């Protein structure tokens, strides 16, 4: 009997006016190749976030959707929200 564990980003979504990138990371446990468990961890990348520790795929998506216009709009939104 062989138990294996793998971690995969099984869902990457672009959400809302400010193109937040939502990433779901799944930890999959398999017994002899058959999945017996899957658990999730989530994080969100805002337009002003540091993406240096993100996966290559997520970085590529952020580079496309987090344009200067989006970053400016999000910064303005945060400024207006700070009350």
């Amino acid at each position, binding site marked *: 009997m062989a138990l294996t564990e793998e971690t995969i980003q099984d869902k990457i979504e672009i959400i809302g006016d400010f193109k937040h990138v939502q990433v779901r990371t799944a930890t999959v446990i398999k017994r002899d190749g058959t999945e017996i468990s899957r658990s*999730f*961890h*989530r994080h969100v990348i805002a337009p002003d976030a540091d993406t240096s520790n993100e996966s290559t795929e997520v970085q590529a998506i952020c580079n496309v959707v987090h344009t200067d216009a989006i970053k400016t709009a999000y910064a303005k939104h*945060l400024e207006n*929200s700070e009350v």
Partner: protein
Amino acid sequence: MALTKVRGAGAEGLTLSTTDLKIDSGDLVFSTADKGVVLGATSNTDANTISDYEEGTWTPTVSTDSGGTTVVYSATYTKVGRFVNFGCYITWENNQGDNANEFRINGLPFTCASNYASGGFYITYSENSNMDSFSQGTVNNGTNYLVFRTLTGNLNSLKGNAVHDASFVSGVFHGTYHV
């Protein structure tokens, strides 16, 4: 009462009758993602369809880059439809507080919806903080962080120095917002 029993490759398990649908054991699994169950309506309307449920963990971080240590003892979420319920128990160092800017706990698992009926949280336990003067806050629309707020006046957001009272601060937070 008419009964139809369905047998797949394994044991007979699904029973259809004029009144109920019963599954003897196992779960109801859709082969296509984002499909759901219509409740309280006799036609397929989005507003009556529950199509998402998820449990998981998230990683809270404190809004600063001063290099202090944040310890996460627990941080979980449950998403039911559009609503996200979350909780966390964390400890962080006082020097992580940015006294010039709004104090935030970042890292919520989903982005809050972009409307003003966004979300909120309350503090159920704390040590070494000034949280006796406030016990709640908001999840602002279009963001994924918590903002602490006073209990008086316009419920303005708090800076780091208004939150901390000692070197280490700990707190347990629970809240809800929609996406």
